[in-house]
């Protein structure tokens, strides 16, 4: 029963799962293109980057987005990717990759509130008090570990399994405050900074693991000027 339910959520967790299924169906053709597994917080930026890469190199790509831990588990269980871009470099350990590129982009955390609550004022102290409803990432997933490193103990009401779930709680006004990535703040118009904050680390640091010629080539592209521009446009620190 629970296995079934796990699958149901995976479905919800990101429409991404659908993309994953498509990727599976297309397994036969994988020699042609680059298979990329990327952390869900990179969804917008890597989608753009991949599009540019296809234009420049005329190589087809297939991208699967999901939580880094989730992707790592799939890779351990036999899924095949030429490139694995993770929000936690430790997850690469034990996986079959040749090259590792660490810290090509960083993502800082920011406390956000729904844009409709523009007149409600909050401050840092509210995170440890029982003033409003707060959603954060669970410890154990990259955004949660970084949240703990940056803010310490928080009086949260729900610990979500990935940052997109936190973002949707805030965007739908079900909670007053949420801690998300700076890139989420930039991409989601329904949330705003809860109070003026400096975008500063502790950050999540992205690492790309790659194998094979086409995988390593894409990994090199991630440090090119074109890719750098895309990442910084989306709110990443470099």
């Amino acid at each position, binding site marked *: 029963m*629970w296995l079934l339910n796990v699958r149901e959520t995976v479905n*919800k967790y990101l429409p991404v799962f659908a993309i994953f299924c498509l990727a599976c169906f297309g397994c036969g053709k994988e020699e042609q293109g680059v298979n990329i597994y990327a952390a869900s917080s990179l969804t917008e930026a890597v989608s753009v980057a991949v599009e540019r890469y296809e234009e420049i190199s005329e190589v087809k790509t297939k991208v699967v987005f999901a939580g880094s831990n989730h992707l790592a588990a799939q890779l351990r269980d036999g899924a095949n990717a030429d490139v694995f871009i993770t929000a936690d470099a430790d997850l690469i350990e034990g996986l079959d990759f040749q090259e590792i590129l660490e810290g090509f982009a960083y993502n800082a955390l920011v406390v956000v509130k729904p844009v409709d609550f523009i007149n409600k004022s909050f401050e840092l102290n509210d995170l440890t008090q029982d003033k409003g409803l707060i*959603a954060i990432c669970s410890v154990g997933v990259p955004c949660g570990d970084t949240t703990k490193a940056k803010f310490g103990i928080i009086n949260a009401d729900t610990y979500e399994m990935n940052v997109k779930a936190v973002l949707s709680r805030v965007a739908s006004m*079900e909670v007053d405050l949420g801690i998300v990535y700076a890139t989420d703040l930039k991409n989601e118009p329904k949330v705003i900074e809860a109070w003026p904050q400096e975008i500063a680390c502790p950050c999540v640091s992205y690492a790309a693991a790659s194998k094979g010629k086409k995988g390593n080539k894409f990994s090199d592209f991630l440090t090119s000027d074109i890719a750098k521009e895309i990442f910084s446009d989306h709110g990443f620190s470099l």
Partner: protein
Amino acid sequence: MNRIPKAVVLIATIAILFLLSPLIGLLQRMPWSELANLLGSDVILDAFLLSLFVSFSAALVVFVFGIPIAWFLARSNFSFMKLLRAVVLLPMVLPPVVGGTALLFAFGRQGFLGKWLNDWFGLTLPFTTAGSVMAAVFVSMPFFVVAVESAFRSISEDLEKTAETLGASSSKIFLKITLPRIFPSILAGLALSWARALGEFGATITFAGNMPGETQTLPLAIFLALETNPEAALALSLVMLVTSLAILIPFRDQWLPSR
């Protein structure tokens, strides 16, 4: 007992193997040596107790509200009946996460009912244990209603009519004649909906969120652990497996007397 045709045995064996294989896989990967350590953690105990509380509360609510719904669906006859029946069954076909999202639209802070609850009574249902129970009730109610409704239909109304001519009140007939006759179906329905409530994940995490000790039931703890600590996830799964078997096996004898 009649001799069972070979083809039936073969097909049944294949089906049973199919159902058993994941279970064997689970047990085979189980970190038996570390089990005592893993099971001793507060997270697992909290999730276990919460799961019991939520699933039994849900079963109670389902019982109290499910019998009248089932009776109504079985016995009354008006033009919107088919539609009503479909509405009651809806949670069965709806993906639970959609159910959870729909619950948010209704009872969430911005929901059309939740907004009112929040403004008037300061009551917020999401992110509370009550919210977990609501999610469990929503997904498990149809299992109970279906079982009990078909039982109501299958019994003849002769006894009730006789009692009526003898002057028994309608509530007395219902309690003393109708209900006892469908008792096995009520138990079966309860067991099914309890099991569904215990395994509930999607609607719970969407509507009630994930908070240890408050809304983090076993399935939620398992899902989180699966990504961060797979061994703990396996230990948790074992807890769920044993709990459900411990409750379902004796229950099953109640509604399907063993030969």
